[in-house]
């Protein structure tokens, strides 16, 4: 099959494209290990990578596993909520000029409220549950989704819309068959940004009050000078956000095959 051959070649090329990033990552880890050994840096100031990994393994079952699970739920649910809310709000702003004039200034204003201040307020309202963290993640992440979607919808070729109007296109069918698909690349730009912000939101939420989660682990480990545990938690948090980012990018490849690498004939 020509297609499977092409797919395999593309997969190999893509794998090779990751090599530089992996190389730099490994080199940084090596340098870090070297620095801690060479200068005899104390574990509580900067634990060596080996130390972090052994902490990760030792503390996995009693602390980190459940914390990762809790934070993963906050990230996934918060991200899902931000995507739903972002698309809905952007759609509303796009369809109704009145809604746009009423809501857009408020939306921008909402982004100037420091999330750090919101976190304890949400904790007071909702207690030590998952809810305030999910809301916080969604609050941080929905804005790039809204902006990406709005930008994409505003950038649709007006000629395409005119063409659809002459082809029995109603307002809704034009949105569904032309405007939304054409906006998708820009929507995904917003989604990737949002995915990168999720971890920050979850940690802010847990710092304001939580009984479990990676942010909670860090909050307790820092005053005890357990730097190895802090670094292990940071590593897990980063891995989760990167994984979400990769999943979003993969979804984009599947849903938006007509841009980017699709045109490498």
């Amino acid at each position: 099959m020509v297609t499977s051959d092409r797919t395999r070649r593309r997969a190999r090329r893509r794998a090779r494209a990751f090599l530089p990033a992996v190389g730099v990552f490994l080199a940084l880890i090596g340098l870090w290990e070297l620095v801690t050994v060479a200068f005899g840096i104390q574990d509580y100031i900067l634990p060596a990578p080996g130390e972090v990994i052994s902490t990760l393994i030792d503390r996995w079952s009693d602390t980190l596993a459940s914390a990762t699970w809790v934070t993963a739920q906050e990230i996934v649910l918060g991200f899902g909520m931000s995507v739903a809310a972002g698309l809905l709000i952007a759609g509303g702003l796009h369809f109704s000029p009145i809604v746009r004039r009423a809501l857009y200034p408020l939306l921008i204003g909402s982004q100037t409220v420091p999330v750090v201040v919101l976190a304890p307020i949400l904790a007071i309202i909702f207690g030590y549950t998952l809810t305030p963290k999910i809301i916080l993640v969604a609050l941080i992440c929905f804005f790039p989704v809204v902006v990406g979607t709005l930008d994409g919808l505003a950038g649709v070729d007006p000629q395409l819309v005119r063409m659809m109007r002459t082809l029995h296109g109603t307002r809704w069918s034009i949105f569904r068959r032309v405007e939304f698909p054409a906006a998708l690349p820009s929507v995904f730009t917003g989604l990737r940004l949002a995915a990168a912000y999720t971890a920050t939101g979850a940690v802010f939420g847990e710092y304001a009050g939580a009984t479990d989660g990676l942010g909670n682990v860090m909050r307790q480990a820092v005053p005890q000078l357990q730097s190895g545990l802090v670094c292990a938690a940071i590593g897990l948090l980063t891995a989760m956000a990167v994984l979400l980012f990769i999943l979003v990018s993969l979804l984009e490849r599947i849903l938006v095959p007509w841009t980017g690498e699709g045109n490498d004939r």
Partner: protein
Amino acid sequence: MGADDDDGIRLVGVTRRYGDVVAVDGLDLVVPRHRRLGVVGPSGCGKSTALSLICGLEEPDEGRITVLGAADGPGRLARCAWMPQRDLLLPWRSVLANACISLENRGVPRRAAQARVRPLLDRFGLAGFEDARPDELSGGMRQRVSFLRTLVADKEILLLDEPFGALDSITRAGAQQWLRETLASEPRTVVLVTHDVDEALLLSDEVAVMSRRPGRITARLPVDLPTGSRREVIASAPFVALRDRLLAELEGGW
């Protein structure tokens, strides 16, 4: 009504302004049903604006437009198909799905729409390409998909805005010949805007000359040519004479 029934398209004193620019000024134009009118004129003379006005994408500032008796925008939009120079295919849809879009817009389920359009692909030289993406096609093929999509919309009026303007001259000659045959087998009321004099003569029953902006019709030439292939017609004496008259009308127009 009576007289209106015979009129495919009627424009009376139509004026359209964009800010200070008068694109079309007091345009009067009648195209009887099932006739094909070619409109030639220098670029920027308001030809494209005239088409947008006829098909209801825009409203005139002054004057009146009726299309098969309908004077309101939605009514005109329901009766006119519009095909611009750019093919405007949707890159995320296959050839077949692009051609079907007007049926889907009318609520025909996708599968039924494709079953209805699939048999037409052969006649448009697209057999075997139904699942291809637009970016896998040549310019000529893309334009044929665009034309198929326009015809599937099943409108009685066809407004063609330099349909082959983006094609190279060899592809263009083939496309003109092909469109001649297609229109001969499926008579429609057609307005063809072009700045290619040969194209206007080959595809129309009558050619109108439009002046520089603000656009008005300055001359109308009935086209009566012998039948035959594109090459034979172009070489015939009546064609050469008509082309000469048209070019004379256009002289100084630029």
